[in-house]
């Protein structure tokens, strides 16, 4: 029994060390850990190594990208990027980013950034934060790939629509408008979005939301974007498991 215990302890220590080593390995010289990034003041220069999880848009040599490492997420807004390099930013790609920590409407992001591609790959698993939705702690998960389980679709307007094209229904499918819809859990209602630059009107998630009905119970995955409060950018919707 003692031997088994010793073996398990040794294994735990080794696993811990290897995890630590792996985290250390991913950070080059002069590169911040996620904790250092989170502690940095706004409007200061930051250097991080992170991994592409999804791309939102490219235009005029600027890319907007959702990234995260094993410890936290970094939203890269309008990062300098050629069209050729943008094509290389597939999910998992490791990049070293130098830019400024900024905040826009509560969304903490890296702006005026440049990047270089490095060796390495990491695809994040969605973190279930359903139980954090109503908590003040939610902001600490900002920009992460997250999931929400067993959410109930609520009416988005007085007419009982299950979703709206644009926040007030002023958009349209053919205009590739963002989709807005409401879901509830434990008596609290939240507003979620399908960001059409991230998932346009040809994607499965766009179609899935267009087919939602009030009362449906669903599981959702997305990036915990922030705009004057939590505003998750949803990338998949499925019937609750």
């Amino acid at each position, binding site marked *: 029994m003692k031997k088994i215990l010793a073996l398990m302890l040794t294994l735990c220590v080794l696993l811990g060390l290897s995890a630590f080593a792996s985290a250390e390995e991913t950070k080059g010289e002069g590169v911040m850990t996620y904790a250092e990034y989170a502690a940095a003041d706004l409007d200061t*220069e930051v250097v991080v190594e992170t991994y592409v999880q999804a791309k939102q848009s490219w235009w005029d040599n600027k890319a907007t990208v959702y990234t995260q490492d094993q410890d936290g997420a970094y939203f890269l807004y309008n990062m300098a990027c050629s069209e050729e390099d943008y094509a290389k930013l597939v999910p998992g790609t490791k990049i070293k980013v130098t830019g400024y920590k900024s905040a826009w409407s509560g969304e903490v992001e890296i702006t005026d950034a440049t990047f270089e591609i490095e060796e390495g790959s990491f695809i994040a698993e969605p973190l279930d934060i359903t139980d954090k939705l109503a908590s003040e702690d939610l902001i600490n998960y900002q920009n992460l790939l997250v999931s929400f389980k067993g959410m109930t679709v609520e009416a988005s307007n007085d007419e009982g629509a299950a979703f709206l094209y644009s926040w007030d229904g002023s958009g*349209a499918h053919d205009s590739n*408008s963002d989709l807005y819809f409401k879901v509830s859990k434990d008596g609290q209602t939240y507003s979620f979005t399908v960001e059409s630059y991230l998932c346009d009107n040809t994607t499965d998630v766009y179609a899935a939301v267009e087919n939602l009905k009030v009362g449906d119970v669903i599981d959702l995955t997305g990036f915990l974007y922030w705009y*004057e409060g939590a505003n998750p950018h949803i990338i998949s919707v499925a019937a609750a498991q």
Partner: protein
Amino acid sequence: MRKRLCLFVLLLAALLLLSACHGSRKVGSFEVPQSLDTSRDYEIVFWAKNDTNKTQTEIYQKAIDDFQALYPNIHVNMRLYTDYGKIYNDVITNISTNTTPNVCITYPDHIATYMTGNNVVVPLDPLFSDPRYGLGGSELRFDGPAQDEIIPQFLSECVIAGTHYALPYMRSTEAVYINKTFVEKLGYEVPDILTWDFIWEVSDKAAQKDADGVYLLNGQKVMIPFIYKSTDNMMIQMLRQLGAGYSTENGGILLFNDTTKSLLETISQHVSNGAFSTFKISSYPANFLNAGQCVFAVDSTAGATWMGSEAPLTDISRDKFVAFETAMRMVPQFDPANPKMISQGPSVCVFNHGDPQEVLASWLFTQYLLSNDVQIAYASTEGYVPVTTCAQQAPEYVDYLARIGEDNKEHYAVKIEASRLLTDNVASTFVTPAFNGSASLRDAAGQLIENTVKSVRRKQTVDDAYFEKLYSDIVSLYHLNQGDSAQGMGGKQDLGPLPGMSRGLLIGLVVLWVGIGLYALRDFLEKHRKDFSKRK
């Protein structure tokens, strides 16, 4: 074989010449058809811009339905945008494939760039004056405005290089939305016309914090005393008020001057005091104003329904609103006795896909957007102003204005006050010249402010060397160095004599063509001589 080859080369050359002729067809070659061919069906694509406002999209849809009822063979398919920049990008992308829309809401600055494509945008003067289908024409199936019923100042904004390329659709200007309660709490009265000195002084005072970083004015940890939505407009208006250069009529670039630098220095001082920020750096001015985190918020009058403690539209939750008295004034001035404010707002242009009948159908719909029903309904959704005197003087519009403050939706006081701000000050409005590159110059004007503000916030040194580099970077970023900057991008320039190599190439081409011609002629003569000999 050689003859065939020669004929093939000649045919190819002829085709190339013909295609070159086609490519160089002058803008203005569109001719108004004698009449609309009603035996055909037309599919008109209309790219419309709304302010993320459901009522506006409903008005567009009603306009389309009403128009189609009048012209059952013209079908209008609308694509909605909420951003002029996106429309501009999409049009530019679609010009090369001839897949632009037929009718498009846009800015004259943008049209000037679209016009770099051959015959892409329809010159409207021949259509304006056509007695049957022109403005107020006899064959119109609706009551459209005559040319002299379009506010001349607004119509003149659609002139590019002496020709009308658009109709104005709506007009707005910028306004300062003020937390009057805060101004008075700081010991000031809101004057009828704000000066820049006043706004900076009050904003600096509003930026004072206690030792814990809490602002004395609002008791919160967030306060941006003065926030500006469109910094391009900010710079353009400041320069115009001071009589300083921005651009010439034909595209000469005058932006990078000493007055601009002096303005940036002033802005940088107040940023370092924590008194100023911008939409691009922080967020929408309305979000801060309505949450009691701002004293002066400058935004379009077309955004008035979002502004104020009773604003009917909002992006922030109602529980974040604070109660305050909202005041509204024209943008700050350097010389209050001689105010100057920008005129802006959507215009409509028509694209040419090579089918005159389709253009005519597009033009009819474009005109319909200026009919009273559409003008009055759309203008009432925001602090817009109708562009025709007939709409402005219509009893229902006069009644709408008179009912200011009756409710917080259609008659929201701030919104109607915003409309009045423009109608009362049309004579003080101005626009900047539109030319190929004017959209980039406008972006550059705003970027000078954005970069300066960011640099101060990032504790970078902002001095003469900084501004020298900033000018250089912005000129390069927006490609404003295409030729002599004093001549600019759109003006016709004397490029001087052709370089020797170019002359040599052209001479070579001429010699080559003459050679081919002589060869073909010799071949032809030889053949006929032989034929003639045979016949003999």
